[in-house]
């Protein structure tokens, strides 16, 4: 009996080794065990992604923020993509801020006429728009079976980014006009500024097909913020500026297209 060549044996051994790996995928079907395909049904490597999403700020007690997010990114591999985020928000002070303003304490002592002092409320910054460089890291790919018939493929990811944003700051409790009377609506201290901003987030992408997917994300933004401490309530521009880390959380819901 002829002896098989060494290369032939090596190749045969590799083929045998491959069989148990496929055996792990064995499934029980109507016709008995059958092999299935394991792996990512939807591949994103070396593809561009363009996404649009609606955003709403959560946990921002003094401010309402709604807006849009345009994301453009490139996937060099299956696990990450890098790109830019462009944000635009419609912002205003919340109903709670209105309630606070309607019950503000008097700006001067009614008995003595002496001006009262006070600190400015934190958390009243409104982010109008921004641009951030962003990276997403997506180590988890999964599949859910809805009603045992509809497979839903998804990817979970973390993201981080940094950039700049335009802010409008409108004080909730410091009046923009001198005097000791009640502050008129629209007459509160305000300013606009451009500030560095960072973001951290987590999200999930649900694939609708090779091109389209739906995205849901939670993003936390942080930026350097300031308020006035010990301000003379009758004189705008008084008090000392104090810094703190401003934060807000945003829910992002949208869709993406891969090219």
């Amino acid at each position, binding site marked *: 009996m002829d002896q098989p060549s060494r290369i032939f044996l090596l190749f045969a051994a590799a*083929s045998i080794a491959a069989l148990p790996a496929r055996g792990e995928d064995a499934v029980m*079907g109507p016709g008995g065990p059958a092999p299935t395909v394991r792996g990512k049904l939807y591949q994103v490597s070396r593809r561009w992604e363009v996404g649009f999403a609606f955003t709403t700020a959560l946990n921002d007690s003094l401010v309402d923020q709604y807006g849009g997010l345009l994301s453009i990114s490139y996937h060099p591999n299956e696990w990450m993509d890098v790109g830019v985020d462009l944000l635009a928000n419609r912002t205003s002070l919340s109903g709670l801020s209105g309630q606070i303003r309607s019950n503000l304490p008097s700006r001067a002592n009614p008995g003595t006429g002496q001006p009262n002092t006070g600190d400015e409320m934190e958390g009243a910054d409104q982010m109008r728009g921004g641009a951030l460089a962003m990276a997403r890291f997506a180590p988890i790919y999964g599949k859910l*079976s809805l009603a045992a018939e509809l497979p839903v493929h998804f990817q979970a990811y973390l993201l981080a980014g940094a950039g700049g944003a335009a802010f409008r700051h409108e004080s909730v409790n410091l009046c923009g006009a001198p005097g000791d009377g009640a502050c008129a609506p629209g007459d509160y201290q305000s300013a606009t500024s451009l500030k560095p901003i960072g973001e951290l987030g987590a999200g999930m992408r649900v694939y609708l097909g090779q091109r389209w997917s739906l995205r849901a994300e939670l993003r936390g933004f942080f930026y350097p913020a300031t308020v006035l401490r010990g301000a003379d309530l009758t004189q705008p521009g008084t008090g000392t500026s104090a810094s703190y880390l401003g934060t807000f959380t945003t829910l992002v819901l949208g869709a993406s297209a891969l090219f």
Partner: protein
Amino acid sequence: MRLLLAGLLIAPVALAQSDREVQRVHVVEERPFSEANRFELTLFGQGQLNPRYTVHAGVGLELSYHLRENLAALIAVSYNPIAHQSALTEELAANVDQQPVAASALLLQADALAGLELMPIYGKISVFDGKVLRLGLYLNAGLGAAKTRLQLRPSDAVGGRSFGDTGFRPEAALGIGLRVFAGDRMTVRLEVRDRVYSAYVSKVNGCTAQDAGVIRRNGTAATGLTPGCSASSFGGSEEEIKSGAGSAAIQLGDPSSSVINNIAFQGGVSWLF
């Protein structure tokens, strides 16, 4: 022998060719293990997601019995060592002499629940195309009781924060979560649970607004208090008692009721046995 080796060579190719056809076949995969008829003990860490007037963080313990693959009965307890007014609430008091009504700022110190869990959706995840883990998406609901309290003094007061007991309230909870099976005995759970409890505040430390007002003026010398109300429950020193009772008198002076949604994120590890 050569025929056998040739067959082995052809086998992977033949399998690959048949893959496209197999994708169209309805298949049912045998599950590697079952959680039916097993207990599951879970230790959670939890933090409030909607902290407008209050901040909560703590731990929870849940014992479930899986009646079927997708149905379990559960009992759960949680305790929040961090349960106090938010920075916004304290800032409102300090900067603009305002505060939320007592019912809106009622704190959840601990709770106990009994309920059911349904896990209708199963799936798999792979991490870096490596190990494949099973997961389940579940919903749960329960009824129970909440132990509540009210903050009387802010963090910057002399002696720090102080609290008054406001008793037990009925509670209901709804949750949605993800269970990732790290093996046949251990799972990792991520869940968002909304605890809904009634918040009618009429007494603090067993004292009515009138009682609190009397204690505010007279301290430990207060007399004619409602049975169950004691001045000493507001603090150790005369100053603490008067300031605590004063805060309670103000918060009880405007009777309030509400239904509070305390939405918390819970992350935990389970042991199946």
